[in-house]
């Protein structure tokens, strides 16, 4: 461990532990997933950054949205995201979730993801290389240090608006709201 960080660890152990143990949801939302297996295996070894994929969203705190999001997947993404315990971070991977990418005129993929769920960071490129994932993650560390990775807080605050946007695209949602007026 870095000696300089001992102070930080003593001051805010929860945040530091959270930061250095990203548990990624195992969900292949798009073609970007092709670069995740190389990065979690021996060649690039994401575990040195504390990244490890887990089976269920209930154990995870990082959601890598790997590539374009079709409307059918969007429903699955929202449900998965809502099941994750807080604090949770979302990183959109690839060009497509930013503005639609090369599928800007596709009738079945949404153009910008942050209208439906909060996104803490973007990794641009098609495909981003494994190094780009690591750079993205180290940037996310900095954001967490500065308390700027506040996507889950924004989701809680603006839940009404997010839900309205989700309903505008997906129609009537068949699951109850995550936050009702009482538990906000």
């Amino acid at each position, binding site marked *: 461990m870095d000696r300089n960080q001992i102070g930080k660890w003593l001051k805010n152990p929860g945040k530091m532990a959270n930061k250095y143990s990203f548990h990624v949801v195992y969900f*292949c939302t798009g073609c970007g997933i092709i670069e995740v297996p*190389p990065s979690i295996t021996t060649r690039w070894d994401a575990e040195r950054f504390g990244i490890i994929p887990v089976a269920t969203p209930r154990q995870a705190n990082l959601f890598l949205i790997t590539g374009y999001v*079709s409307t*059918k*997947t969007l429903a699955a993404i929202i449900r998965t995201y809502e099941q994750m315990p807080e604090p949770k971070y979302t990183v959109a991977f690839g060009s497509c979730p930013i503005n639609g990418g090369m599928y800007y*005129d*596709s009738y079945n993929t949404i153009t910008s993801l942050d209208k439906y769920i909060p996104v803490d960071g973007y990794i641009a490129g098609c495909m981003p290389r494994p190094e780009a994932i690591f750079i993205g993650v180290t940037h996310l560390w900095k954001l967490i240090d500065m308390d700027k990775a506040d996507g889950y807080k924004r989701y809680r605050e603006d839940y009404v608006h997010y839900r309205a946007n989700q309903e505008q695209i997906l129609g009537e949602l068949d699951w109850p709201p995550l936050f009702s007026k009482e538990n906000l």
Partner: protein
Amino acid sequence: MRELKLYFGPQHLGMVGNFSITLQVEGDRIIKAESNPGYLHRGFEKLMEQRTWIQNFPLVCRINVVEPDHMELIYSMGVEKLAGIEVPERGKYIRSIFCEMARVASHLFGAWAYANMLGFDTVANWAMYHRDLLLDMFEELTGARVYHIYLRPGGVRRDFPDGFTDRLVKTLHKIGGKVPDYNATFFENRLFQKRAEGIGIVTRKEAMRMGAVGHTLKATGLKYDIRKIEPYAAYDHVDFNIPTRTGGDAYSRLLTIRDDMIESVHMIFKLIDKMPKTGEVYTKTPNPFKWKIPAGEAYVRCESARGELGLYMVSNGGTNPYRVHFNTPSFNNGLTVLEKALEGESISDVGNIMISLYVVAPEIDR
């Protein structure tokens, strides 16, 4: 016992890709399975009608993430057939070598998926590492790791760099040297054998009835391979075998995939030996912005790593295609064969059977 409806995927550890299956189960036994694709549908065939012939190349390779190269190949072959372009001899050889490299990389990815899903993590790590070595070769050749956009109508984008074939042979030898270890720890391991033998049996009669292609068919002993039946690129210049098994179960399918990979490596060596040392690698095509292809239709097919890949293309004489329709091997294997193969199996074998049928979700959805 009570019947339950179980949703398997898309967020599931045993599921490779964004795909889901609705299972009707009684206890642990599957009574009925229903594939539910569409999570990756982008409407490629519609988008391609709105882009010019050359602009479509970045799109086609994204249809199948695991092996984009055969998608480029089939689209180039379609355009060539419609426009009447010939590929120079050296270009043909380079295409074949490139596609065989893609096949090996794709099979290594398949080995990763299979081993990872069953918990053979050591083998999974090896397979992914070896695939990465091949991706380095792709990167040297084309500049990109995953989506290469290297093939084009009339040939390939550029010639091999100096000494590329030597480095490729060295890499392949490095991977091939590991095959005994793969066999000992994975393919011929008793643990794995017990897990994969006798599940998801598709007999030859059933496979032919359900229109199966690729390894599903080869594992029942039928040598259905477009490279032999209707040779394209440089496959008619080399001599190669089509590995088959007779079991028809998941284990035979995986062994067919392994043997196919080894055969591909040998084929690359043969192709490199036979390749003309110099010569053009592409035929000049007109200005892509003004390129109009005469009206007509074409049906071309090739053998991708997953089986017969077809493309039906119609041109109405304009700058864009009028209609493009890909017939991908996973479409058949994932929607017809998978549903039948899962019946009567246990829930724990769903991922096992699905990967052995070599289903890739984006190929189904397109």
